[in-house]
């Protein structure tokens, strides 16, 4: 197992290195610089700013300097927020995004798998069609639409929940989590339905029935683990993908998260922030892919045996 984990982590090093290198040069190739503003910046001021951010150096020296800093865990100063470091900004945004993502996935997994299991138990009946149609809509309902609709209904007309904020007013975390989780719930529903259908047709389910177990025990004890495997495989990459996806939700609900940094950095040509978030994101992708493989192995003893070889 450890061999496998270490092997995968070693593979990740060139991946992250290439991502950093490509991003470093891509952002500098993009038109518009971090100091371009509607009001023209005086050339001397611009030169002073570029000096402060080492942008006056030849690009390869900038690159090497960045790598040296990075190897010491220093992601550099922010362009957009002078006086703050990228490390500090990521630290400040991470908790909210992580929490939001965790709630969203929790909601996605609970609602999605319930719907998927319900559908798989009675395929091609209303109990299947209704949740699956909802899932179809859920997958395609963009968050920029779902968020405002929820706010209108529950925030304004019913006045049940606060329309924005994060940890300011009780209940203000609910709507953002649902908004972000909806699409994932829909995917989970489809995956768990397919997974459960597959598992429920297996011979060992018949064995369980032949033991005289009631249907719910058959489904929960014997079906669930196998049926949820595709969901686990999906969740790893999905959680890493949340960072980019949470931008819209964070904006709608005024959540102080990392997603806003990630997207706005690109708009602002905030070089260090783009790189910082990208390094962070690629690390997350690697880690969560690995994590989902480990969880899959934990769920599936056969896989576990393969990995421990």
């Amino acid at each position, binding site marked *: 197992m450890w061999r496998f984990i270490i092997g995968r982590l070693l593979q990740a090093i060139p991946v992250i290195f290439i991502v950093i290198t490509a991003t470093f040069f891509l952002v500098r190739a993009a038109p518009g610089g971090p100091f371009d503003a509607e009001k023209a910046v005086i050339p001397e001021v611009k030169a002073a700013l570029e000096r402060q951010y080492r942008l006056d150096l030849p690009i390869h020296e900038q690159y090497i300097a960045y790598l040296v800093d990075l190897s010491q865990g220093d992601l550099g100063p922010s362009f957009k927020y002078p006086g703050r470091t990228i490390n500090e900004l990521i630290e400040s945004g991470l908790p909210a995004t992580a929490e939001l993502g965790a709630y969203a996935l929790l909601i996605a997994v609970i609602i999605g798998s319930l719907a998927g299991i319900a559908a798989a138990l009675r395929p091609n009946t209303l109990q299947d069609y209704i949740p699956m149609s909802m899932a179809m809509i859920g997958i395609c309902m963009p968050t920029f639409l779902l968020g405002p609709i929820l706010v209108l209904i529950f925030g304004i007309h019913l006045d049940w929940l606060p329309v924005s904020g994060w940890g300011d007013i009780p209940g203000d975390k609910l709507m953002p989590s649902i908004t972000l989780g909806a699409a994932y719930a829909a995917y989970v529903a489809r995956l768990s339905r397919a997974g459960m259908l597959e598992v429920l047709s297996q*011979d060992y389910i018949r*064995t369980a*029935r*032949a033991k*005289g177990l*009631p249907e719910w025990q058959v489904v929960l004890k*014997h079906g669930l683990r196998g049926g949820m495997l595709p969901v686990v495989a999906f969740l790893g990459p999905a959680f890493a993908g949340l960072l980019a996806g949470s931008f819209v939700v964070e904006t709608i609900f005024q959540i102080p998260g990392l997603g806003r940094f990630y997207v706005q950095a690109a708009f602002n040509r905030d070089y260090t922030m783009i790189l910082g978030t990208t390094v962070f994101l690629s690390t997350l992708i690697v880690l969560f892919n690995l994590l989902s493989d480990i969880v899959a192995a934990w769920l*599936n*003893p056969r896989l576990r045996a393969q990995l421990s070889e």
Partner: protein
Amino acid sequence: MNLLEVRDLQVDFNTRNGHTIAVNKISFTVKKGEITAIIGESGSGKSVACYSLLGLLPQPPASIESGTAVFEGRDLLTLSESELRQIRGRDIAMIFQDPMTCLNPFMTIGDQLIEPLMFHKKVSKASALARAKELLVEVGIRDPEATINNYPHEFSGGMRQRVMIAMALINEPKLLIADEPTTALDVTIQAQILKLVADLQKKRDIGVIFISHDLAVVADIADQIIVMEKGFVVEQGDSNAIFTAASHPYTQKLLAAIPSDTKVTTLNDPEPLIQVKNLKTYFNTGTTVVKAVDDVSFDINRGEIVGLVGESGSGKSTIGRSILRLLPITSGHISLDGQDLTKLDTNTLKQTRRRMQMIFQDPYASLNPRMSVYDTLAEPLLLHKIETRKTVEHAVLRLMDEVGLARAFIRKYPHEFSGGQRQRIAIGRALATKPEFIVADEPVSALDVTIQAQILDLMLDLGKQYGLTMLFVSHDLAVVRHIADRIIVLYHGKIVETGTSETLFNTPQEAYTKSLLASIPGRNRLAS
């Protein structure tokens, strides 16, 4: 004393594709303390009949149209689902064919074993585990303390089937239904499991229904035999009576299908076509090296059929695949007609592949499910430019004639065929390139006995017609001696014994060969 009395049971299937009667008004009785065997080919309705008793058939598409099945004074067919559940796993337990798929791969065998006990008898987990360990010992699993927390994949097929049996017996059922419990196992393991079932049945004095397609399997253990064909019971009676005086032609056919003759070698002029020298094929699993084939040398002469016999894991399939260059070998030489196959470049290898072909064990997996018969058979013909696009259809039809497939099936897909027909398609594909050498890897072990006989005959016929040289890989000595001129016995990647079929059968030299021979089912009864 009658344990189960089934009267006029009829089970229908209603699907989009029509209405079929799977079980047609059958009646039979199972007595306490006896083994009742139900024999029939796939599709005869033998399993459906038993599953319907326990409510294990999905309804729809199945529907029980009529009948009664009285078990201990209650009609199983009229019980509610919850009442049936009380009986399932408690009074009536089941063992299924494939222990590979019938145990939950995600749970330890301990957890699976104690489940029926805890559910039906409400005993504590500790005492259930204690009972489970006792039973594991009883079914022949040593050191249950260590193995009870293992997962199914950590056991061999035979061990898994023992676990299944323990699981079925843990609630001391009055009736045990065993559905082809040995079909997926090697002959040696089959013999052990058969003995175990018979022993346990005697010791506990319970009723057993033993479902099989093979009369030979039940020959030694069955008290009663029921023969089913196409949903009907065609014959039933005392085991001795069936074996000695079967009246129905179908039963006679089943008896005749049991391979029992030995091929007499007629080859005069040995000229080696295939030469294997010091072949080693190892598999590296990361931490350990498995020596699947360990220094094996043999020749196969032109026109000869060589049987390669051994248990699972003996390396017999690996040898076949190594010769065909489907697996990378570790060292050694393989030559076809003097040409060293291990030293060919990709292009020459592609040309050479035309001369050697393979027939696989599982006709379900070896045919591309999304290719029709036409596509499957035309592919090699077109690939090796044996036929042009214009003439290929005719060639395909001719090939179908040769392997005994009706021409009308040309656009059908593999799933629409029975196992035997599928294997005919696979044989047709192998023959399409007019090869000189064929590796047949357990080509009949997944088939019913009657079909086995047909396919073996087909292979013998075609072999003669095409002048084929063949390596016939099997775990079943009875099959091999029917078809092979010479037999190689393999054990743990090494050759144990070689000889013509006749000599090997009549005067086996090695102990291992002897034990293989001893495990041929029904040997005693059929010999007498």
